[in-house]
């Protein structure tokens, strides 16, 4: 069992906080790309957020989209580069709040792109404000008394909203432990395989720790994913078009 992180992500050091989930997600993507021999071809589109720090710390050709619109940009890139795998690498803020219209219309049209959504239940780069995915009672910088579901609504669950659309793949994995990492990698690989076969829109959400903005130690923030986030955001595959046909 040889386990060495791909050179596409280890050639330099990242600027992420200690314990940041982006490092984990990026390694999973790089491993999948290496296994599928697509590292040279992948076109990544990143958002204006913590995830954009990857521009310097991965070797994939990368476009930085307008804030919240990486999926729309990825759809455009795919239309002119049909041979290449195209991935939008975004956070929950870009996918479900700022860029909700773009995500929704990509799902309606079933455009052939992969969206990797990092769900840390808040806005990371701007300082930990309340997001649509924040849990009830969660203390953030914009909800100092805890998120009130009567005012702000319950956490947005992508499987409830998007399974009705005719999309190719929808899954949610956790990055809280080794088992979750292995499972998440399988979801990402399946999404890229479907993408390369041209089946349509593939969205994989990954539950991620954000120790800095949750004001927790890194270990407590992964325990929080297991104890608090997974009961709200169940893991698994929710839409797998081919199996249904």
């Amino acid at each position, binding site marked *: *069992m*040889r*386990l*060495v*992180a791909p050179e596409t*992500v*280890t050639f330099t*050091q*990242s600027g*992420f*906080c*200690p*314990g*940041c*989930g*982006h*490092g*984990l997600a990026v*390694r999973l993507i790089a491993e999948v790309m290496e296994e599928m021999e697509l590292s040279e071809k992948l076109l990544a589109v990143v958002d204006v957020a913590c995830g954009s720090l990857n521009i310097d710390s991965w070797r994939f050709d990368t476009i930085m989209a307008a804030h919240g619109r990486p999926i729309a940009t990825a759809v455009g890139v795919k239309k002119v580069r049909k041979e290449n795998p195209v991935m939008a690498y975004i956070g929950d803020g870009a996918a479900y709040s700022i860029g909700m219209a773009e995500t929704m219309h990509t799902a309606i049209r079933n455009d052939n792109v992969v969206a990797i959504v990092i769900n840390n239940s808040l806005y990371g780069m701007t300082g930990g404000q309340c997001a649509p995915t924040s849990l009830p009672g969660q203390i953030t910088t914009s909800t100092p008394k805890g998120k009130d579901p009567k005012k702000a609504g319950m956490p947005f669950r992508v499987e409830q909203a998007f399974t009705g659309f005719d999309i190719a793949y929808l899954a949610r994995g956790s990055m809280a*432990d*080794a088992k979750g*990492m*292995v499972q998440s990698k399988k979801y990402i690989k399946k999404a890229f395989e479907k993408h390369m076969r041209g089946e349509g829109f593939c969205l994989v959400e990954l539950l991620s720790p954000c*120790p800095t903005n949750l004001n927790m*130690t*890194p*270990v407590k923030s*992964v325990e929080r994913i297991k104890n608090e986030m997974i009961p709200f955001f169940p893991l698994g595959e929710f839409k797998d078009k081919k199996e249904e046909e």
Partner: protein
Amino acid sequence: MGKEKNEKVYTNPVRCKGCGYCIHACPKEAISVSDHVNAKGYNTIVVDADKCTVCGTCYRVCPDYVFEIR
């Protein structure tokens, strides 16, 4: 799984940010904080080779690619 073909866990302390995921996740409690401080100012980790079974858990949970199993 398990020790085979002289595989070992190699660490690269320069990359370590001291998050402690590996210490928390290691099923054999073979990883601990060392006194060594790297250039970024983080206390790095050390692997006890006698306790280690080379299961790969540390590699999978590390967000900064400190571990290599080869």
